[in-house]
Each structure stands twice: as C-alpha cells, then as structure tokens.
C-alpha cells in the first residue's frame, strides 16, 4: 500500500515536472509482458554468458518475460551505473545485478527502486539498502571452508599453501579468503601454513606472473587455492609450463570449460563451481515473482524457482541455489561444452 502511495506520488511529481513519458509502472497488468534486465559485471565473460542462457530458459518457461542482457564493456561500477540509468529510462520492471562494487551502485539502484523497479542481485551482492533479494551462488562459509578441505586432502594435511585471488577489491573473494583462514585455524590443519595471498586481477598474464612468483618465493610450496576462474586456469598453465604437476597441487573455483583440459591432465585433481545457468535461471524466477506480487521480499518468505524447487529468504533477504559442484577427471568432460 505504501509502495503504491510512493508510486502515485512519483507519478504526480513526474507529471508536475513536465515529463510526459516513461513514468514508473504503477502496477503491472497481468497481460503485460515483464521486462527483466540481467546486468552483469561485463559483457564477454563466459560465466555470465551461461547465466544469460539460464535466464532465457526461465523466460521461456514463464512465457510472459522478456530478458534484456546488458553489461559494460569493462568491469567497472561507473559503466554499470550508466546502464542502470538507461534501464530506469526504459522503464524495465526488474533489474538483476551482479555488481562490480558493493557501495558505488547503491545510489543508482535506489533511484531505480524509487522509480518502481524491482532490484535484485545475484552472484555478487551490493549493500542491502539498494536491493531486495540477493541470490548467492552458494553459502560463503561453505565455499571458503570446502576449498581448504579439498586442498588438505590433496597434500595430506601438510605443507605450505598460497591463495591466488582475483582483484584485491573483490568482496566475495575476500569473504571466502576469510573463511579459508578461519578453517585453517582448526587443529587438523596445524601442519599446513598459508604463506601468501596474491592478486591476479582476473587477467591471465597477471595471474600467471603471480603464480610464477609464488613458485620462486616458496620453493617448497605444496598447493595453491585460486577461487577465481581466470586465476585458476592461468595457475594451472603455469604449473604445467614449469613442470610442477604433482608437486604443486591446485584447486579453486573454475569454469569446467576453462579447466577441463587441466583436470583431465592431472594438473588439478578437482575444482568446484556452482552452476551459472542455475543462477541466471533462479534470479529470473525471483524477479518475476516479486514483480508479479506472487512473493514478498521479506525474511522467511518462500519463492518457487521452477525446476530448482523452492528457496527461503533469510534475515538479510539472502538465499542460495545450492552447494558448489565438484568437478574431477571423471565428470568434467560432461560439462566442458555447457559452461
């Protein structure tokens, strides 16, 4: 009701201000198709191309949804803000964002919300002030801890390990690294030592160079955890090039398409990742139900996600689709052409 009132006020202000189109949608009539925008970190990123496929799949199932797939040409917050402004001007019904910056986007998404647009986030969150629901890829704690567990298995719970991350400002990376450090404090890891955290900025050459630097600085290095797809692939390549296969173990989060070769060649025994297709699929369903009024963005609310079943929102309106899927030599080839 209050939302309705705000919308009416906004429409009034618009008319009074002399604007004559593109007002905020008051309530979406049942027979009107929904336009849901998928705003990703940058275009030309294989992970998000897969998420788009998932969104398209959901749109097809729902029937009355049109997906707009957009992103800046480089992964910057300013580029995403520019696109949010254009989406507001177009009067889309919902924007689903994987953000480049948790703070900088908030003023823009609040403008969108004020214009009556449903703002949800997936994969990479923004501050809760600027969105309703966040669909996390998986539980952060689980992601962080499970990678340390996987690494420990590979190196028999002893030796030096290092982390090769994406950019130093990537929020989700930093949260996972924090959980990794917490997990390493458990007694069973007393013989393992985290010697360094380096940043490859999600660039192949930089990640490769950082990996080489690690080999050189720590001759006894037993393993590297790289929770980012560009980083883990570049590290695998570096291990292979230096002839360190078997000597330096590798695990992390990587697209099966990028990692297939290395996992099958034994450079890395296993990598994990959630399914970007499911993320795109799920967030489309969430946006759809919120706009249609079938679900409410409130703690404890249950939202049906088509084939994925139902999810429940927690206190901070966060939910996730599932556990990261583990790829090893036995199954990775089945996924290499999918995402």
């Amino acid at each position, binding site marked *: 009701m209050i939302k309705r009132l705000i919308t009416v006020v906004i429409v009034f202000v618009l008319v009074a201000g002399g604007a004559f189109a*593109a007002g905020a949608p008051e309530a979406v009539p049942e027979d009107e198709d929904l336009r849901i925008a998928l705003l990703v970190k940058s275009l030309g990123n294989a992970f998000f191309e897969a998420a788009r496929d998932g969104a398209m799949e959901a749109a097809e199932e729902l029937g009355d949804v049109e997906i707009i797939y957009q992103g800046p040409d480089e992964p910057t917050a300013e*580029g995403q803000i*520019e696109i949010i402004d254009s989406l507001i001007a177009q009067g889309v019904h919902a924007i689903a964002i994987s953000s480049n910056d948790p703070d900088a986007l908030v003023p823009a998404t609040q403008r969108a919300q004020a214009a009556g647009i449903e703002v949800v986030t997936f994969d990479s969150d923004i501050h809760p002030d600027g969105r309703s629901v966040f669909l996390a890829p998986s539980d952060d704690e689980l992601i962080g801890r499970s990678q340390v567990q996987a690494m420990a298995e590979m190196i028999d719970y002893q030796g030096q390990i290092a982390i090769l991350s994406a950019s130093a400002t990537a929020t989700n990376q930093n949260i996972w690294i924090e959980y990794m450090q917490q997990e390493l404090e458990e007694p069973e890891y007393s013989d393992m030592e985290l010697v360094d955290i380096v940043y490859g900025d999600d660039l192949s050459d930089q990640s490769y160079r950082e990996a080489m630097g690690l080999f050189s600085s720590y001759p006894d290095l037993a393993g590297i955890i790289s929770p980012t797809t560009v980083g883990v692939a570049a590290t695998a390549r570096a291990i292979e090039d230096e002839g360190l296969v078997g000597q330096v173990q590798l695990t992390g989060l990587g697209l099966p398409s990028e990692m297939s070769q290395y996992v099958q060649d034994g450079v890395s025994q296993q990598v994990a990742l959630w399914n970007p297709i499911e993320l795109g699929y799920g967030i489309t369903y969430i946006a759809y139900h919120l706009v249609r009024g079938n679900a409410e963005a409130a703690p404890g609310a249950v939202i049906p996600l088509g084939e994925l079943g139902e999810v429940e929102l927690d206190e901070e309106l966060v939910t996730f689709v599932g556990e990261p899927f583990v790829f090893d030599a036995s199954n990775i080839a089945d996924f290499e052409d999918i995402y």
Partner: protein
Amino acid sequence: MSGEQARLAKQPRASLGQRALGLLVRWEMVLFLLLIGVFVLNSNLSPVFLTQRNLLNATFSFMERAIMALPMMLIIISGEIDISVAGIIALSATAMGLASEAGASIPVMILVALATGLAAGLLNAFIVLRFRVPSIAVTIGSMSLFRGVSWAILGNQAISGYPRELAQLGQGTVGNTMIPMPLVMFACLALVFGIVLHRTGIGRTIFAIGNNATATQFSGIPVDRYKAVLFALNGLVAGFAAVLLTSRILSTRPNIAMAWELEVVTLVVLGGVAITGGKGSIIGVVLSIFVTGYLRFGLSLINVPSQVIGIITGLLLVGAIILPGVFEHYSNKLILGKQLKPLEPQRE
C-alpha cells in the same frame, strides 16, 4: 578560433561560395548536424529517448568527464596533454574519503579534494617543465603513480560513510526543477572556459603557445608559467570531478574512473581540437560532449551491447575527422573545379 582566422587570413580572397562552403564544413557545424542526427535516430529507435526527464537525467552519467574535458581542451590547445587525469580523480577522491573519515565537514572535504588535485597537477607541471620531458611520457608515468598511491592508502578497503547531504552535489537537481546540479555546474564552467579561451588575452596566448611555443617565448610571454597554470588547473578540475563522482556514488575505491583519461581526450579531439595544439573551440568541445553522451545513452536505451557502442563511437571519431576533409576535397573539385590540393595529413 584564432588558428582558424589565421588560416582564412592567409588565403588570398575567398569567394562567397567558398566561404559558405567553409562555414558548412566547419567542424562545429558537422558536430551540430551529428547531434541532430543522434536525436532523430534515437527518438525513432526508442520512444522514451525524447523525454525531458530522460534527456536531463542522462547527463548525470557523463558530466564528470564533460567537466574534465574543459581544462584538457586548454592543455591540448597549448600543445601538451595530460594522461593522468583519471589517476588524479582516484587520488583526490581518496584524500576526500580520508577527510570524511576524520570527520571533516562537506566544505572541508571538497577543499581537500581540490587541493589534492591541484598538488597532483603541479607535480605534473614541475616534471614536464623542469626536466623538459614530453607531457605524454610524464603523465603516463604519473597516471600509475597517482592511482598507485590511492591503492597504497586504501588497499582492499572502500570508504563509504559519506554524509547523505553530499549526494545533493552530484545526484541532486536545482531547486524544484528537474535540472541536474552537475549539468548546471558544467554549463557555468563551460561559459567561463569559453570566455577565457575566446575573448581574453589569456586565450589568445594559449593558442599562440600551441601554434609556436618558441616564437611566443621570444615575444616575451612566460610560456612555462602558462603551461604550469594549465596543468595545475587540470589537476584542480580533476579534483572537482572527483567530488562530483564521489557525491554520485557515495563511496571511494582506488579503481574509480578507470580508463577515463582516454575518454576525456576523445571528447576534446572529437570537438575539433587539434591534437598538435593551436586550434580548437569551446563550442566544438561542448557539442562533442553531448553528441557522444546522447549517442551512448540512446544506444543503451535500445540495449545495444556495450562493445558495439564502443565500435560505433570509435568509427564516429574517425568519421568525424575524415568526412569534413573528404567533403571539402570533393566539393572543391566538383563545384569550383579548383586545382586539387591533396589532403594534408595532420602530424601527430
């Protein structure tokens, strides 16, 4: 403008037809036609382009770059360039963030940002003028230095606790109207820069320096002092752009305004300012800002992928430079039957 006049003065006597033609192919005219073209195209492609609100709101996202284009215009006219401006923005915003965390009031925060920008500009000026190193080389280095200092200070942290009132500067509108604050500031600054460039002795001197620095030096003008002021001014305005950007995103990270340096240079050059110096006009630059801004906005309204927008603006830049020349070339040939002079390649 004076470069243009000088060129006209050198010609023996232009016939009326030639002069009309000259007017037609003037860069500003081309840009103006382009702007109209952009409006016609976009309003046909998207029903929501041509609304007062959208046209005004669209300016929010390119006003910082627009404001930075103004001092850059002066620097390029004077024959120099500053590649470090985006780095200065990151540094100034960081300083402003530190001030905010220390509990400074908004005016103090703004002063800190401006002072940081000014200092960065002065450092550029000092290195360029003291050691006689080409400004493009110096500022490629200082670009990394400025942003690097911002990284060193902030690391993986962001500053976000800015006071709410700060938002009024970069996100707000004037009074009860829908006119964006940054647009008004840009308009005022553009007016000042335009008057200084085209109506004062300072402007004439800047053109003269860009045309022939040595001759200007010999005529008793302190060329270095002028250039130092221009670099300092560029830093100062970059500091101001940092204030607006911070106000718009209400947070600071070291990677803000990434790669803006080349975008700002593009705006200036598309505006008809010769990269070799000595030629350019405020009207051209202002037109180019709106042509690019609205072209990008219009294309993103119909959800053209960003990379394709990059291709289109890139080709526009090249086209805008070639077409007037080609037009002049062939119209001379067809209409006036004049002896053809080959197109003069501009030296970089």
